[in-house]
């Protein structure tokens, strides 16, 4: 399947936004303006843009710790205020969770964002219930759970896939296999470097996707979501990709590997080449898009920085509902 050029350019713009968001955030984090911890999605833009493109506001997704991009895209697309994701990361009152959640807990049900859970893998169980609600109510929606390759180590992986399978729940498992869990190579942490090998026994379709090729990723997500919406039950996608962020303490991966992924397999570059090869657009046109998006992200950062801190007394609100 070949993508029409408008869609491809739109997706490219989404990818640019993700990268600009992450780079801007990282810069502010290093300056000490963003508290807590930070995991960025740089390098995984194609996978993220493909998922975001197909999920509607009435679907649900559970973003992982590198999903600022998906969160921002959904927030911008459905509410027109992507800057509130940025503000949340800065711990501001204008953030989507008024500063209570931060990077690891930015949610907004209005855009289908059901929030990360920093205990990796725990929402593999939660996603079952969202899907069950769709099923019991006859809604043709999808509950998507985005997990890293490392997260697959958790017992909930098994409980979740099994229950989704026996109840034929509308769950899309999107495993972002970037080759490592912190420092642990996927092939050392799991019985197979291909996560699909661990998923196949549950009888759902299991597909490996080139997560750095936006065209392929877009098509595979589309297929999966159509399958699920048609009531066929769960579906498992494994995106092979790579994260640019090393460890907090620096790069630990072999230089050839770093070079390969950052240069030859850079999803941005691959997308740019496709666009230029298949349309009248030039590298200059794409640069203009990049500049536009970057300017917007700078505004978001300014919005976040200029936003007030939450009222401390709010810290005791909402522990219990109604009490």
């Amino acid at each position, binding site marked *: 399947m070949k993508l029409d050029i408008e869609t491809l350019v739109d997706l490219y713009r989404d990818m640019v936004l993700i990268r600009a968001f992450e780079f801007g955030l990282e810069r502010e984090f290093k300056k000490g303006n963003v508290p807590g911890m930070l995991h960025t999605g740089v390098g995984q833009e194609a996978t993220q843009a493909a998922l975001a493109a197909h999920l509607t506001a009435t679907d649900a997704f559970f973003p992982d710790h590198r999903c600022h991009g998906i969160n921002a895209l959904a927030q911008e697309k459905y509410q027109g205020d992507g800057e509130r994701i940025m503000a949340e990361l800065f711990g501001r009152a204008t953030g*989507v*969770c*008024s500063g*209570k*959640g931060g990077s690891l*807990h930015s*949610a*907004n*049900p209005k855009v289908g964002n*059901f*929030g990360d*859970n920093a*205990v990796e893998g*725990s*929402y*593999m*169980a*939660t*996603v*079952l*219930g*969202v*899907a*069950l*609600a*769709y099923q*019991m109510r006859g809604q043709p929606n999808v*509950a998507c759970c985005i997990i890293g390759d490392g997260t697959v180590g958790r*017992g*909930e992986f098994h*409980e*979740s896939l*099994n*229950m989704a399978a*026996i*109840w034929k729940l509308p769950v899309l498992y999107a495993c972002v296999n970037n080759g490592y869990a912190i420092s642990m190579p996927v092939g050392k942490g799991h019985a197979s470097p291909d996560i699909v090998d661990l998923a196949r026994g549950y009888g759902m379709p299991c597909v490996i996707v080139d997560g750095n090729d936006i065209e392929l990723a877009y098509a595979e997500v589309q297929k999966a979501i159509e399958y699920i919406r048609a009531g066929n039950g769960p579906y498992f996608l494994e995106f092979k990709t790579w994260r640019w962020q090393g460890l907090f303490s620096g790069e630990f991966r072999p230089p050839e590997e770093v070079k390969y992924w950052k240069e030859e397999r850079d999803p941005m570059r691959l997308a740019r080449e496709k666009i230029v090869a298949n349309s009248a657009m030039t590298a200059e046109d794409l640069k203009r898009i990049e500049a536009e998006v970057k300017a917007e992200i700078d505004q978001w950062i300014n919005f976040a920085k200029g936003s007030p801190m939450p009222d401390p007394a709010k810290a005791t*609100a*909402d*522990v*219990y*509902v*109604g*009490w």
Partner: protein
Amino acid sequence: MTQTSARTRTFVQALNEALDIAMERDPNVYMLGEDIGEMGGDFGVTRGLWAKYGEARVRDTPLSEAAIIGASVGSAMMGMRPVAEIMFADFIGECYDQLVNNAAKMHYMFDGQFKAPIVVRTACGGGFGGGPHHSQSVEGWFLNVPGIVLVAPATPADAKGLLLASIENDNPIIFLEHKALYRVKGDVPEGHYTTPLRRAAIARQGKDVTVVATMKMVHEALAAATELEKEGIDVEVVDLRTIRPYDAETVLESVRKTGRAVVASEAPKIGGLAAELSATIGEECFHDLKAPVLRVAGLDTPIPFSLVLEKYILPGKEQVIAGICSVMK
């Protein structure tokens, strides 16, 4: 609390009625757990409901405790009202993360955008030779977890009213059912009614000493009170009913009146509910207390299998009596 004529029912029947009424009234209520369907649950609490409401709403699950709670929470985020059964409370360690880090924090960390109105029914307590993994009192595992609600009925009427109130409440609730109470009978009003959460009950009025208790220990305290009445000691028994967040006002008011307090709990003494109650009473009633607040609780051990050993470590009427006599000195 609308209630019509009362009839005698067992604790299990009272729970079953509550579930039936809740399922009947609200299509968002559904149940999930191991063997709760055709079999009606290990203790018969869900009996008949699978036949009446069908397997979409009375869902048998595999032995996947984390998935049971996860599925509950996720569906609750969507507005459903799941009632999960964890067969024995001892197994709740398997879904501890789901309850503590997910259900309990959901509403707070997402700034009120989601709610997690789940009810997790579970059978707790010892006394029948169930051994270390089928006999525990688990409320202590959750006492220090803001966001969690712990409900613990002592009578059939409260079992029904508190379960209905719990299902209708918007918070994540662990609903403790003491196995020794399942066959206990009592008056149970017909039809729908709720017993308020976070409200203790005065199970017996008295003026000399306050015993604060939950579940089976309420009955042990009442038995102790009957016995001590003969000796001229007038015991007030407070049945806490909701353990977290609990009704400190009723407890403190009673202690201020009697000036003496015994807190009775089946769980091990160290670090349990009895400690929390004692600390709060000590803080708030310092000048009213005529004697130190005394904890009557389980010994600090796992629960052994052999009945003679189990009886030795779990508190009963005798220990409550001894505790009362000690603070009356």
